[in-house]
């Protein structure tokens, strides 16, 4: 036994079919520390956590908690031993009250009946400890996501946890809420609890953690004290290659007089977008900036035929040489859009992108096959060639093309969806938040791919909530606010301050920009 570690995970190995998810990983944690766990998507962070919480069972290695070896069998079992987890999505019942949510499954009883008074009093005390003065008898859905997150943490903490795992707790919080969460985390640390903190936001890692552990490709890279590592070193360690080359991106320049490829004039649909006009030139990358709900996605859906166009026209020029020529028929549905050389990578990967139980090969070939129609099937050899080509080209991390897409990490799923559309050889590619929820390395990779495609003459419409990546990549930027296009910026005008001012102008919610 080494010096008083609260948790020791030694030489953990987990084997998934065809891939070693964790290879001899060590993870040590002292009492009263906030320990960040970092790595790209697919590096093994969640696998390590799931091993600790009993979701996955380790194939080798030992877990020692408080000096005793443990074998967590299920999340329930792990929780009884003092390992509590708060997941990214809030796992509570929105229709129950805050107090009920905190005590559900372990209600204090009195005379054979649930003791509501105690429940409500203790819930109030608990929330007060989190510096929150809220009415605990209101249903959870009444409160904001941030407060719901706090309730989830309160519930996790109240079960006498020794270790608290926070998996991406800040992804849906704004800055003030993040500060509040950090205060709570510091309080808990002072009480001697060990907190494992998983996040994609590197600033937050440096703001709150004491130590950090980096994983890469299922292997341990190292554990560092926070003061011994710089941000650049950290990213380099996570990605495993030099970041300079990746971040040295040149935004695509379009010579004046380049013809338009897509021109939309006063298009709209009731309840979605009233009236928007835009044009995209050959090889151009148009960035769409604006808050969530500002009409960015709605515009993309109009262009791709997902939503019915009620007025306005969309004209595509010079398109159709590699697709079934359909004349200038109106785009009525995604199939029409596809045959005319449009492609659309939707925002919600899980809901609108991946076909989880199909293989990578089938997922990549899907759009090409849809364009051909089912009566003209692609041979297995064609499909394999297509899949292998994009697996190599985009660096999709998988043992082979037959793995189910649902088993891949988020970043790799995104690459497969991207491959699905690149395979259709689009002339206009619409990307809606292609970099959301994926790590730095994969983000840079996707940005590089976009710019490469622009160079080959593909026009790209790029929607993102992250201003810096929009600014870095776009030829022109369209700023959306309240379902209207409020500005179009190019060249020198594309600065963060300018865009933020435009987004905020007249609206009071300027602080909410992510």
């Amino acid at each position: 036994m080494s010096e008083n570690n609260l948790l020791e995970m030694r030489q953990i190995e987990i084997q998934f079919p065809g891939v070693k998810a964790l290879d001899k990983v060590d993870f040590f944690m002292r009492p009263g520390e906030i320990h960040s766990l970092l790595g790209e998507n697919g590096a093994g962070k969640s696998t390590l956590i799931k091993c600790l919480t009993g979701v996955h069972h380790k194939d080798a290695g030992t877990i020692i908690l408080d000096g005793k070896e443990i074998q967590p069998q299920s999340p329930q079992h792990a929780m009884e031993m003092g390992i509590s987890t708060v997941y990214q999505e809030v796992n509570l019942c929105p229709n129950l009250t805050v107090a009920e949510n905190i005590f559900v499954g372990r209600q204090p009883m009195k005379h054979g009946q649930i003791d509501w008074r105690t429940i409500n009093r203790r819930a109030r005390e608990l929330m007060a400890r989190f510096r929150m003065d809220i009415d605990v008898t209101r249903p959870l859905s009444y409160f904001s996501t941030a407060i719901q997150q706090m309730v989830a943490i309160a519930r996790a903490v109240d079960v006498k946890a020794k270790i608290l795992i926070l998996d991406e707790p800040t992804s849906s919080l704004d800055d003030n809420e993040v500060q509040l969460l950090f205060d709570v985390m510091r309080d808990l640390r002072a009480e001697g609890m060990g907190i494992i903190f998983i996040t994609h936001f590197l600033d937050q890692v440096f703001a709150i953690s004491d130590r950090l552990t980096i994983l890469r490709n299922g292997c341990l890279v190292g554990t560092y004290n926070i003061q011994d590592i710089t941000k650049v070193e950290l990213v380099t360690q996570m990605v495993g290659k030099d970041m300079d080359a990746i971040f040295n991106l040149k935004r695509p320049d379009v010579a004046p007089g380049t013809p338009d490829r897509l021109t939309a004039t006063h298009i709209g649909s009731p309840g979605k977008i009233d009236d928007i006009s835009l044009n995209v030139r050959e090889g151009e990358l148009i960035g769409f900036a604006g808050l969530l709900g500002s009409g960015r996605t709605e515009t993309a859906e109009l262009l791709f035929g997902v939503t019915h166009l009620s007025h306005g026209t969309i004209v595509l020029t010079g398109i159709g040489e590699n697709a079934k020529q359909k004349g200038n028929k109106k785009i009525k549905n995604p199939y029409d859009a596809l045959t005319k050389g449009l492609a659309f990578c939707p925002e919600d990967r899980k809901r609108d992108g991946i076909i989880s139980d199909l293989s990578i090969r089938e997922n990549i070939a899907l759009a090409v096959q849809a364009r051909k129609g089912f009566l003209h099937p692609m041979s297995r050899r064609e499909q394999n060639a297509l899949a292998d080509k994009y697996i190599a080209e985009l660096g999709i991390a998988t043992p082979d093309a037959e793995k189910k897409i649902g088993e891949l990490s988020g970043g790799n799923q995104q690459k497969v969806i991207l491959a699905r559309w690149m395979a259709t050889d689009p002339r206009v590619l619409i990307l809606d938040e292609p970099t959301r929820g994926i790590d730095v390395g994969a983000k840079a990779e996707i940005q590089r791919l976009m710019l490469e495609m622009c160079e080959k003459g593909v026009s790209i419409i790029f929607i993102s909530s992250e201003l810096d990546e929009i600014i870095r990549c776009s030829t022109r930027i369209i700023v959306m606010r309240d379902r209207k296009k409020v500005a179009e910026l190019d060249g020198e005008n594309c600065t963060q301050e300018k865009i933020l001012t435009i987004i905020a102008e007249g609206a009071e919610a300027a602080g909410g920009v992510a």
Partner: protein
Amino acid sequence: MKKKIDLTQLLRSKVTWAIVAEILVLLVCLIARPDFFSLKIQEDTGMLYGNIIDILNRSSEITIIAMGMTLVIALGGTDLSVGALVAVSGAIALKFMRWDVAEYITPGDYSVKPYALALLVPLGVCTLMGLFNGFLIAKGGMQPIIATLILMVCGRGIAQITTDGRQFTTKFTPFYRIANSSFLAIPMPIIITAVVILLMWLFVRKTAFGTFVEAVGINRNASRLSGINAQMVIFIVFAITGLLSGVSGLIYSSRIMSNDSNNAGLNFEMDAILAVVIGGTSMTGGKFSLVGTAIGSIIIRTIVTLVYYFGIASEATMAFKAMIIAVVIVLQSEPVSNYLSKRARNRAKLATGGVK
């Protein structure tokens, strides 16, 4: 290395377990009655005769329907109307062949004038009814189980109205041959079933239709955004299921040379769903296996035959069926197959002399 992976995959495959189950049930039959597998050629008809042939023959109505049901379930739905469509198909066919009206037959020789209509009209009507189901689901956005409930309930009513609530009989030989003749000593229903399975397999696996069905079944939204016409896929699948129910109905009524609006196809929807599930297709939709379904259907019939053959009271058939099906489904379940494939992997490791 390659072989090891194949073994674990084989153990995970649900079709494997369906085959194992069928073999086990047959073994029980063999042990109890060594002559269970005996086959002989009937003198008068030149047809093969025996328990195995009987199982295949009698399972054909369900197998044919279950081919369509497989696609419906792969889409994430269920079709409850198939049994009623069997009744409709039989009723319409018999309407054309009723031998008590001079309009349809030449008196005395029992031949039916527009014989083609007696086959094509029922099949056409059943296809249309399938399209009606598809319309409610694809365009109306109804849940398949609710949408098909409509025809399940009113289908038998339609059958009754078609025949004025009467039971017609026929003696028309070409119709009799559908279920009661043989080709190369093999009973005709088995041939028809084999052809249906083959055509369906070609249709779903040699075109991209099967992949489209799976894609829509797993994630309809994403499929639509990828350019798949999900509504058309739904229409086609339900139309096929309607058509196949019609085929099944013709075989059924050819067996009894009559129509029976009350009992024809009774509970066929349940047996078809069971066959699909035993065959390894998940009720939540997605990946499907036509071969698995065919085996599932044969298992169901084997169990029924076994019960009859051993003189177990027919009231107990259901309980018996449930028992064996429960075992099959448990064997196929995720935890069990994971456990078994893990064990197989460990054993393979030992066998190759792994030291770890």
